[in-house]
């Protein structure tokens, strides 16, 4: 896994690229969390919003976007700014329609389903989740305003 850090004090930028393997998730999440801590984000953001939403985005990229194929890579760019956090997760998949995938897993008929809560949690825990058009790959961008 490769990573780098922009030394500008007003905004730290972390970038990672790693093979599609869920074992990389915690390392990336911990690095972004640590940077949020340096930038004095709210404790709740550090312990709940960021780790859960980022874990979901990375799992989606690895398992859905890249089909769990270790030959394919996931790229992450986290801009940890003084007013907001912007995380972009890029996979090598064809992309998906966010609106079409946004089911409500809390309805009585879906409550006991094992799957289907990932995107829902991302949207609940981040201020904005969007799919961004890119020349190569599929990009999901999440924005969280600093409390």
């Amino acid at each position, binding site marked *: 896994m490769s990573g780098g850090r922009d030394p500008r004090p007003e905004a730290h930028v972390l970038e990672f690229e790693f093979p599609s393997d869920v074992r990389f*998730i915690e390392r990336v999440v911990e690095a972004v969390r640590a940077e949020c801590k340096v930038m004095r984000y709210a404790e709740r953001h550090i312990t709940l919003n960021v780790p859960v939403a980022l874990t979901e985005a990375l799992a989606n990229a690895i398992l859905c976007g890249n089909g769990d194929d270790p030959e394919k890579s996931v790229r992450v760019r986290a801009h940890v700014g003084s007013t907001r956090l912007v995380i972009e997760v890029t996979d090598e998949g064809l992309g998906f329609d966010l609106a079409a995938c946004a089911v409500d897993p809390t309805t009585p008929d879906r409550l006991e389903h094992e799957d289907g809560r990932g995107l829902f949690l991302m949207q609940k825990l981040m201020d904005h989740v969007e799919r961004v058009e890119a020349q190569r790959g599929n990009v999901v961008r999440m924005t969280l305003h600093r409390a």
Partner: protein
Amino acid sequence: MSFTITKQGDVSIVEIDGQLIVGNRQELKQKMLEELEGGARKLLVDFSKTGYIDSSGLGVLVSLSKRIREQGGELRLAALNDDLRTLFELTKLDTLFQIAETRALALASF
């Protein structure tokens, strides 16, 4: 991250130390199913040492809950911190599980 299973009377207590996420959920599922297959019918998951849970972790708990119920067993969850409680509330899984403030209260609820 680790999962520890201990016995207190006829209750199997599962402690999750660290995160419960996509990378380790199958390990938890396997350990709890082994308990169930070994005859355990009262299972308690203690979250007092748990960091965060993702949707995969929640999904495994839902799946285990169904399986335990089908086998005539009972599942209790205990000692969720505020973040974990928020996750259960956002997903309305707090309506599906019996959640106790402490391990002692969960044990007493069987």
